[in-house]
């Protein structure tokens, strides 16, 4: 508000400065958005257009060929979509259940083992075993190699999210909980029918963060999955990209005799795949931006 007021009595020098700031910000903003427009544009381009003028925001010649060929043989994409949706939903629900219960217990000042449990959780932020023991644990000991659960369970619950939840719960007045107790409500009932309804924004914020993580997941597919119909969307995109790069590389050329036309056609196809995979996130998430900025400002809660 202050800014609006002061703007009227800006000096000339400040006005120039303001213009410079806007120019810089426009360049930065474009650098963040423009590449995606090029990806979308290329997904609608014909082979000739790509050969002649490369990747472009507005293709010199447009066609729906790329999308048609994906929809003609949609199994791979449909499988990956299915895996991604399933893992994201289960991971988010499970993650919310685990982080909210633990975070709630930590937020209760009258819980006697609060400090022990708090340290127990906090220690994991300072120290972890690293990739190798975790990999052996999940793939060998728990036997999750090539199981869809290897995409869901690791990363479901982390100390940082628990801290966020706890921070939210701490803002609930303890008098509410006390009076419910006097009315004879049990702890589970208090949590389900008083605390949870009051914490809808917390669940929304954390849930959105978890959905984003789940949707963008590829790392666990890389580590644990060899079965091509059980991989996540992002991993599938990675494989597609690598395959084409391999075919184009010197080594690839020796092994396979690549049909140049098919290879170029696949440029548009891979951009179309990219659009279909990122589209949902980029269309939906800007509307929830306020939750994300809220999520990062509560980070200062500790204890």
């Amino acid at each position, binding site marked *: 508000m202050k800014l609006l007021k002061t703007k009227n009595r800006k000096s000339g*020098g*400040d006005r120039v400065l303001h213009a410079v700031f806007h120019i810089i910000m426009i360049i930065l903003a474009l650098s963040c958005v423009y590449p995606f427009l090029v*990806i979308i544009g290329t997904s609608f381009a014909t082979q000739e257009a790509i050969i002649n003028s*490369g990747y472009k925001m507005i293709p010199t010649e447009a066609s729906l060929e790329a999308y048609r060929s994906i929809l003609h043989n949609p199994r791979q994409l449909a499988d990956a979509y299915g895996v991604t949706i399933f893992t994201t939903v289960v991971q988010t629900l499970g993650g919310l259940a*685990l982080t909210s219960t633990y975070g709630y217990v930590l937020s209760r000042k009258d819980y006697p083992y609060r400090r022990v449990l708090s340290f127990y959780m906090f220690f994991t932020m300072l120290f972890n*075993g690293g990739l190798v*023991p975790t990999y052996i644990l999940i793939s060998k000991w728990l036997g999750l190699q090539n199981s869809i659960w290897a995409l869901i369970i690791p990363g479901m619950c982390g100390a940082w999210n628990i801290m966020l939840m706890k921070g939210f719960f701490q803002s609930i007045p303890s008098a509410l909980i006390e009076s419910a107790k006097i009315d004879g409500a049990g702890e589970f009932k208090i949590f389900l029918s008083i605390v949870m309804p009051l914490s809808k924004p917390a669940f929304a914020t954390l849930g959105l963060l978890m959905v984003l993580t789940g949707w963008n997941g590829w790392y666990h597919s890389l580590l644990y999955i060899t079965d091509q119909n059980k991989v996540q969307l992002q991993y599938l995109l990675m494989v597609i990209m690598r395959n084409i790069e391999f075919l184009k590389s010197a080594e690839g050329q020796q092994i396979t005799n690549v049909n140049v036309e098919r290879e170029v056609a696949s440029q548009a196809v891979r951009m179309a795949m*990219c659009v279909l995979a990122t589209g949902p*996130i980029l269309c939906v998430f800007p509307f929830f931006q306020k939750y994300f900025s809220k999520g990062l400002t509560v980070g200062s809660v500790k204890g």
Partner: protein
Amino acid sequence: MSAKKTTKKAEAPLSQSSRASRFKKSLPLTIMALPAFLYIFIFNYIPLYGLVLPFKDYKPRLGFLGSKWIGFKNFEFLLNNEQLIHAVKNTLMYNVVFIILGTAISVFVALMLYEMSRTSVKIYQTAIFVPHYISWVIAAYVFMVFLDMDYGILNKIITSLGGDAVLWYNNPKYWPVILTIAHIWKGFGYSAVIYYSALMGLDESLFEAAELDGAGKLKQMWYISLPGIRNMIIMLFIMHIGKIFNADFGMFYNISLNSPLLYKTTDVIDTYIYRTLIELGDVGLSSSVSMLQAVLGFILVITTNTIVNKIDSDSALY
């Protein structure tokens, strides 16, 4: 540590029976915390066996307990391992550049946003947040749009100006710059918003007073805004230093397409561990590097946090 000690002190005067009744009374809450407690135990505490794993000659067939103890044998060749030394050097250098440039750019963007109206901030913020929502896999597509040898935007510009197409993905010398741009591109929006929200908390009367004294915007930014968030900048800076041995695996692995031609400048500790474990199957080597990384990281986090605690205990992790 301190948490444990205080609970012990509080417990001491309690008799056996009151301790039991306290346990009983809090049982429902304990049960509520149990699922996450077990989860953390399995996925965060069991992997701590990784601390002793490098001292064993691990054979999957024999299992962890059945494998033989071999002392420091796994560590013997670490110092002569040229690839590893390269990876460590790269990790440190990239992190130093990322911390300095990343902080400078995010703070600068936050300062600029602070001088703008709410509507402009909203529009710019939406745009610079876009890279934050995507995975490194998609970011790799974005970079390929520019760097592709045949159809990329950069090579199209270079050839149209009469130059020769550059083989970006074959030559390691370009990658320090490319990876630095990638890191900043994906992260600056998010950190700028953090600094921006800190700026929003500054006392407005300071700016009004400065304006009455005839200070221009640039002066206000330099003498009021920047010192106002100085502590936060220092805090985040130190916290990043605590993670200087950790690299973002997703970025280095995806943006460089994990191309062996580029390892000289794109290989970092995390990609090195991944490669030795998954692609070479060398548990001894990868687990010893992984353990050293974890221990060094732990020491650094503790040290930096102690420093942060001294400067401003509110910003410390614990």
